[in-house]
């Protein structure tokens, strides 16, 4: 590559200087440049080929549900389980300290009417009775079973009913 780059630069310099018929210099420089590009691109094509094999072994031939499970595993499974418990057209608030986790579970919860705000895991103060809150770990929210309350550090407690939960998160309906 370094040699090709050097050849290319010398030919280009000669072409610009006009010491040799520029057409010939630039023809050769173009060929050297194309060969250098092809070498780099061969490595990239190899990587794309490997990726295609990996993608094929992971997704090819799978039904849609399994393909989504293979892609987004826990997030999709949780969204599917919680989504089945939500009565449309209720509003659904997703809360998580992980931007990625919150985003993925919110995405899979649509076409429910979902609210998820990046960098802000605390549900807003404008919650209404019948809204749902999805908590996804990691989260600073704590559920107090005896009081049926969700508590955040910087917000008044929220009166809720626990609808479903597992080790990754929970679904709560605002009372």
């Amino acid at each position: 590559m370094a040699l090709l780059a050097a050849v290319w630069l010398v030919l280009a310099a000669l072409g610009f200087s006009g010491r040799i018929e520029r057409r010939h210099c630039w023809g050769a420089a173009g060929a050297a440049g194309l060969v250098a590009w092809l070498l780099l691109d061969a490595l990239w094509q190899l990587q794309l080929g490997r990726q295609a094999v990996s993608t094929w072994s992971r997704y090819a031939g799978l039904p849609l549900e399994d393909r989504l499970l293979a892609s987004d595993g826990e997030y999709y499974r949780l969204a599917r389980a919680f989504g089945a418990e939500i009565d449309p057209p209720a509003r659904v608030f997703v809360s998580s300290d992980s931007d990625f986790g919150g985003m993925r579970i919110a995405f899979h919860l649509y076409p429910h009417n979902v609210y998820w705000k990046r960098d802000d895991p605390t549900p807003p103060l404008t919650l209404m009775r019948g809204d749902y809150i999805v908590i996804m770990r990691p989260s600073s929210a704590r559920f107090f079973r005896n009081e049926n309350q969700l508590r955040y550090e910087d917000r008044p407690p929220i009166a809720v009913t626990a609808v479903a939960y597992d080790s990754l998160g929970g679904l709560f309906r605002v009372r």
Partner: protein
Amino acid sequence: MTILLLILCLTLTWWPASSWVRLLLNRDMAGYGFIVAGYGLLAGLLVTTLLMRLAAATGIDLSFAAIALMLLGLGVVGEAVNWARRQPAATPQARVKIPLSRWQRLVIGFLLLLILLRFLSLALEVVWRPVFPWDATIHWAIKAKVWLEHQTLVPFVSQEDWLAQGRSGAYTVHLAQYPETIPLLQTWAGLAVGGYHPSLINLPWLAMYAGMGMAFYGQARNAGIGAVVACAGSYLLLSMPLLNTHVALAGYADLMLGACYLAAMMALHSACTQPAQRVAQGSLALLFGAACLLIKNEGVFWFITILSGMFAAALPRRLFWPVLLGCGVLGITVLALFPQDLAIAGHSLAQLDLQYRPQAWTGIISSLLLLDSWHLLPWFALLLITGYWLNDRSGVGNLTGIGTALALALALFLTLYLGTGYAGGAIRLTAVSRTSLQLLPTVLYLCLLLYQARLTPRPAPTACPDNANPPHPRGRINGQLSPVQSP
């Protein structure tokens, strides 16, 4: 059945818009078929989304049959107008084709094979992999999912409005105010396959890729570039790693924005350099430039660069630098007097927090020159553009339009990453390459024009008495331009 519907979907996306592009162009121009195919495909993607908006606005349900019928009608009208305005076929002598040599055919065949291999590699990823990119799952694909579920364009409002409205039935996502073209494209593919499909909604990205490649080759040929160099240029375009990544991990808007900007700028250059095509190519430049507004909010800035290029190209040469200076002074004055909290394209000066951030240089240089996002393109561009400025401007033709537009775009790009709060996107290497994708295909086209000029023989000096009968440069016979097509 799904495959048949997808073929129908592609045909209906492509053919009607192509018939209208054909209306604009003269079939005797070099690269005509590729320009029609490439621009037709890109225009078809845009027109389909406009028809979907029209259907929603007039209360028509969002269904494949309804949109397909509208496209069919558009195509039939386009063909009818073409037929009514048909012209006698060009005489066989009108365009002289120089046959390709054996090695040229071999090189072109090899490059086409590589392009086909790349297309297949990317197509497999698109077909198999569920939607993955951050932007797709944070806003674009969400809209498609909801619209496909409700079979209508349910409104999306900002998060603040959504909270204030209570249970109004509206939805919300991050950046709800962004244009709807990208999710509409995903919705169109979804309608063709009968509903939301996590992989096949991304098929329009393959169409963007193919459309870009064909339009690039066609316009390169139209600019007088030989078949081998034009084919090599198309291969360089279609093999750039970050561009490939945006197809394989489809769902970002930057590829479509880059494709529209490229299409507009290539047409702008043709309009500036070929008087016979001024109206047709100028119209394409304006249409695809305006299309940038429909894709992302920042498209407005790219559209302004295209308008600036058109304006600069129309100026008499002696006025260029004074007007440029005047515009610079005017720009700085407006910036100084502009209200801090007034938002344009979703951004206000207060949010942008204008100040020089030199630490962003590292990210910009890494993204463009050190990482392999673009293979060698930025290096080629540096050499060719520097050489053009410092040394040799002969044989290049009028680059005022494309040059001014790209220079302004580069200035805006550097201002964004060196002078605003978006510098973080360069420092963390999260956004600078994506924005580059919107511009670098056009930079490649400029490089190809500069390179082609280097391959053209120097014009003979006019003062030399020995050159009373200098050899004619290619394509010039008896003092008149002949439509010779270089090999």
